[in-house]
């Protein structure tokens, strides 16, 4: 009976606080994406829409580690039995990828473009099965370039 109560408390705490932190994170992501929308970030190997000589190029990266809440972890565990899409982890990965790209962009606010964007995801799981930490790390990296002509700053 005690373990049932502890489980239910953890489950509700996980749900409530997980939801709160997710909503807060999404608000932050939306605002920052809007602010940085004018910095083109592509997986293209060549600059897009411009043939001006490149003045400066550097490797930029951003990474983030995010953990799921208890509720989502249990939900994924249940889904594991029946199969199907693990919807409870979708927002986790979505937030982590977008946050990593945002952090990368924030490292080079004066760049004109970021080329050759790559995203790597790895799971951080330490401990025995069933007692694992359900966290993921997402690393985004690319090449930030600035053109020679200063008027080209931030492509129109």
């Amino acid at each position, binding site marked *: 009976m005690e373990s049932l109560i502890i489980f239910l408390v953890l489950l509700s705490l996980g749900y409530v606080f997980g939801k709160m932190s997710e909503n807060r994170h999404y608000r932050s992501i939306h605002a920052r994406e809007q602010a940085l929308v004018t910095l083109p970030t592509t997986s293209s190997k060549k600059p897009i*829409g411009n043939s001006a000589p490149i003045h400066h190029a550097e490797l930029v990266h951003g990474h983030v580690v995010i953990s799921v809440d208890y509720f989502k972890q249990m939900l994924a565990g249940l889904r594991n039995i029946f199969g199907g899409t693990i919807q409870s982890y*979708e927002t986790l990965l979505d937030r982590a990828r977008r946050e990593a790209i945002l952090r990368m962009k924030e490292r080079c606010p004066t760049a004109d473009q970021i080329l050759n964007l790559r995203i790597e995801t790895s799971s951080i799981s330490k401990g025995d099965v069933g007692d694992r930490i359900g966290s993921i790390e997402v690393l985004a990296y690319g090449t930030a370039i600035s053109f020679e002509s200063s008027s080209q700053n931030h492509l129109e």
Partner: protein
Amino acid sequence: MKYQPSLPEHNDNVSHQHPVREFFILMAGVLSFVLIGYWVLGLVVDVAVDYLSPEQEAQLHHTLDIDWDMGEEVKPDEQAKLQKLVDSLKPCLALPYPITVSLVKSDIVNAMAVPGGKMVVFSGLLDAVSSTNGLIFVLAHELGHFKNRDHLRLMGRGIVLTILAMLTLGGDSGFSDILASTINIRTAKYSQTRESQADRTALQALQCHFGHVGGATELFESLQSRGKGIDLGLTHYFDSHPELQQRIDDLNRLSHELGYAVQDTQELIEP
């Protein structure tokens, strides 16, 4: 090519279904799977237990020779007297293996049949009964559990439940405990019918031993007079022994049906 800065209006990478709904649907699925599995495998256990030969059962008891640490044991001579009483009941019950009694010092008014052919008697029981007949009935009740192989049924179900919980949810997840507490109510109900069955066996043994069934309801009446005022309201569900009055009525009806006489009881010589 012109770059047009814009952000997507909708996030297509995440599902917008409510997670709580998903959780309840999946949980209901797991629980029904486990309940059905438990029920079916429970029946399999019952069948398997019925098919077990006395030799196999004796072998099983030998294998299960576990040291059940129940608490401090009382003086060996008192235990020996109880053992003698149990042994004197053997011809009436025809058990294919020996039963070892251990008397444990405790206020609890109870006795238990544990796998491995061991019977644990708590010393509180000796204070609650006033006649040898009353004590013999309780001992015969526990022997009845052995005779009806209830300990094997319960153990079998315990194993089934553990395996099911481990298969579906992994050994040490929180779900296993929840399942255990959910199914406990069912187990209790299951063993209620087994308790009544053991009462029946004990009544027949009492008749066989003394030639009458006086003292059969003695312990229940004694418990009834003690237990007043401590009913927590939960006993109806969680108490695995059928309610006392019900048991007394059943025993009286049964002895009437079988034509058993009720005569004076022998005073208990404190073992």
